[in-house]
């Protein structure tokens, strides 16, 4: 598994980055969403390579399944009429590149200069240990996330609901 995962990392990484660039650069929103699905699937593959199988399946269920469908629905509900033609190469887009380059440079310098105590053999625990960690030590935040989701669902319905005509 180790030799395979170190060999498979680079093609998957290239795929993820290429899909991410396509998400930003496609003019057609549907194409952008499809590239985003490819990117999420690549991230799920990275999770498998990092021995996080449960997270990989959650990633596929949540991102590749649910969030992508939600975004595709939103694209179809908000069909643009003649917009989206000169959306990309405006002034702000060129100003964004140096800003992002500076942020990336700082992060790369931090990564390069930090000292890691990385283990050679340690790896993510299996699903059983993860579940016991999640439901014993982190049970309260876990329940809190469900509350956040409930509030978000109610808020989303309230925002997207059609106004009643009086």
């Amino acid at each position, binding site marked *: 598994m180790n030799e395979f995962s170190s060999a498979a990392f680079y093609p998957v990484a290239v795929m*993820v980055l290429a899909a991410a660039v396509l998400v930003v650069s496609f003019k057609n929103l549907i194409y952008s969403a499809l590239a985003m699905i490819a990117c999420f699937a690549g991230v799920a593959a990275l999770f498998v390579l990092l021995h996080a199988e449960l997270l990989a399946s959650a990633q596929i269920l949540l991102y590749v399944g649910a969030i992508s469908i939600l975004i595709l629905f939103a694209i179809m509900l908000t069909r643009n009429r003649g917009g989206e033609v000169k959306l990309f190469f405006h002034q702000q887009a060129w100003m964004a590149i140096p800003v992002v380059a500076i942020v990336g440079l700082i992060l790369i310098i931090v990564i390069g200069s930090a000292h890691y105590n*990385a283990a050679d053999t*340690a790896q993510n625990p299996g699903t059983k240990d993860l579940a016991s960690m999640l439901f014993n030590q982190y049970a309260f935040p876990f329940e809190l996330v469900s509350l956040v989701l409930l509030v978000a669902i109610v808020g989303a319905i309230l925002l997207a609901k059609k106004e009643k005509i009086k």
Partner: protein
Amino acid sequence: MTPLQHYLALSVALFCIGAWGVLARRNIIVVVMCLELMLNAVNVALVAFSNYSQVIPGRGEVFVFFVLGVAAAEVAVGLSIGIAMYRLRERLKVDELDEMKG
């Protein structure tokens, strides 16, 4: 074994591409998609740290579960704001939302 730094470099690259999209694109749905890319980049970094951790492997994975939950909530609210905005003015450009400009 792939060194930890390579995973972190990938995470930085993905984060920067997402930030570029958030700053450069003006359609609110694309902005939400690029925000998701940034969240995914952070998830990759967390899982990589968790995998290479000597102290408590797996703690980063637990954190990623919470990030997933909050990301789902954020997408739902963001897209419904987009739909409400479209219903109001049939446009989705972020920079047209300037009523509250002082």
